[in-house]
């Protein structure tokens, strides 16, 4: 009889391994969300010169636990005219792909749930399934705000999926593998991918902000315009599940960025002590999580036409040019690292320098439009001639 790890029968071990993996993932997701909500409150508080939660537990650490218990014990409300089965199914449709994404994340040298050789494609696929849940939630709520939120979300998520995937393609071209483990192994030293492919990183980072509905791209749930977007009719733990999914997705895209551009689990001391890799990976992931919060505290929300225009007129052309140049340089040079790095940094510079010019033209247009409308108002409100 063959013996698997820990002297357990391999067939039983397969089932046991699955159960352990699912248990660990749910544990990670739930605790990750709790930690992130706490971090979000504290980071925002620091940035807005406040203290943040501090009453419940040491440093307010137990505040999110209290909130989670409150959410769980809330009354389960469903409006009468909602489309019942789909209204109930939508949170699950958003939540489950996010949980499934954790399977291929490379936490450490030997801490990968399933080292798929198409891991990156798998992550992209699961990321694209979220849209369906959001659109269904918007439609099933039978509420105009929800529907508008769902439609905006469909347009936004489908549009930003394109630059997101194009950003990944550049890295895949350069490394030559779709496997998360191979991509991590390809950047062992201090020369991580972000130094060679910064444009792909910028593209992916902006698209990932939009894909996870984070500010400044949080139009599907824009409070000042749409009440709460597709979440309007949701309350209690169903609303909580949507937020768990959002925080989980933030973790997943942060982990993708840490793996693809910042060397994943690699860091000082990993060769001697592989478990350190988990620490480095988590730290790198949380740097991006906090960066997301920083951006949320800094930037105002975009308008829907600015959002779409930026995606289709700026990000996608730049990403396509980047892919074309990177592919050409890989074919042209035996060691293409330096030329690719030069071209990529030039593209980043073009983006950074070029954006204010497009904004200047837009500003001039707005100013002339304002002047016209002011002139029109003055003409209408001009006091009638009495004499």
């Amino acid at each position, binding site marked *: 009889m063959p013996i698997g790890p820990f002297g357990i029968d391999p*067939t039983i071990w*397969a089932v046991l391994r699955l159960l352990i993996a699912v248990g660990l993932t749910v544990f990670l997701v739930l605790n990750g969300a709790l930690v992130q909500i706490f971090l979000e409150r504290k980071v925002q508080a620091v940035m807005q010169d406040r203290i943040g939660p501090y009453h419940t537990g040491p440093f307010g650490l137990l505040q999110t636990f209290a909130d989670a218990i409150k959410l769980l014990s809330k009354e389960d409300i469903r409006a009468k005219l909602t*489309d019942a*089965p*789909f209204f109930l*199914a939508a949170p699950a*449709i958003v939540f489950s792909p996010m949980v499934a994404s954790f399977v291929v994340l490379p936490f450490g040298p030997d801490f990968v749930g399933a080292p*798929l*050789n*198409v891991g990156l*494609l*798998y992550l*992209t*696929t699961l990321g*694209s*399934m979220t*849209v*369906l849940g959001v*659109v*269904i939630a918007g*439609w*099933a709520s039978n509420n105009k705000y929800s*529907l508008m939120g*769902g*439609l905006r979300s*469909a*347009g936004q998520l*489908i549009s930003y*999926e394109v630059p997101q995937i194009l950003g990944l393609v550049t890295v895949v071209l350069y490394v030559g593998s*779709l496997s998360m483990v191979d991509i991590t192994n390809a950047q062992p030293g201090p020369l991580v991918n972000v130094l060679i492919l910064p444009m792909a990183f910028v593209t992916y980072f902006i698209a990932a902000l939009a894909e996870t509905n984070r500010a400044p791209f949080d139009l599907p749930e824009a409070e000042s315009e749409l009440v709460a977007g597709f979440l309007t009719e949701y309350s209690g733990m169903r609303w909580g599940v949507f937020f768990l999914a959002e925080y989980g997705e933030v973790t997943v895209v942060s982990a993708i960025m840490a793996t693809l551009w910042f060397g994943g689990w690699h860091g000082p001391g990993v060769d001697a002590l592989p478990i350190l890799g988990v620490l480095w990976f988590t730290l790198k992931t949380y740097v991006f999580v906090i960066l997301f919060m920083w951006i949320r505290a800094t930037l105002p929300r975009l308008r829907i036409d600015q959002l779409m225009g930026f995606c289709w007129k700026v990000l996608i052309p730049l990403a396509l040019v980047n892919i074309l140049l990177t592919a050409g340089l890989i074919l042209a040079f035996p060691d293409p690292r330096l030329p690719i790095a030069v071209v990529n940094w030039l593209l980043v510079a073009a983006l950074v320098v070029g954006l204010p010019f497009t904004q200047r033209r837009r500003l001039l247009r707005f100013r002339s439009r304002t002047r016209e409308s002011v002139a029109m108002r003055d003409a209408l409100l001009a006091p009638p001639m009495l004499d």
Partner: protein
Amino acid sequence: MFDFLEPFFFVLFTVGIIGAGAAVVMLRRITAQALLMAFTFACMAGMFLLLGAETIALFQVLIYVGAITILILFGVMFTKQSESDYALFFQRQAPFAAGLAAVVALPVIVLAFSFKDVATPSPRGGDLVPLGSSLFTDYAFPFEVASVLLLAALVGAIVLVKRDEQ
């Protein structure tokens, strides 16, 4: 010990594809149709997984569940929904539909029963390299033609929308 799993999942996916596909045609609720259509596509992806074609399965989900279903939903939500029954030009379509379905189904059935020896599935995820290399060598021309066709459709759609605005 787990030999029963493959036939079990095959039956599950088959029932899913046929049942959900029929329900998409029969039902009238847009949410149900969309979800069931996505479910049909997901079951198709499961079939590809059983055949050892992981990459194709993932592309199936990425393109059909993640994009095409959403685009159809998007279209339906943006167009006007009338409460009345559909006013179709041909009111009695059943015989036509049956005839057309038979014409399509016959070759498929003949083809399905002509398979005698099924090739053994390749190891996990082994279809990525063959798929990529055949797409860009043997099938490079159809691939390029398809991409030009899609580009033409994209430009055409933009032209139509712009003409409406003017």
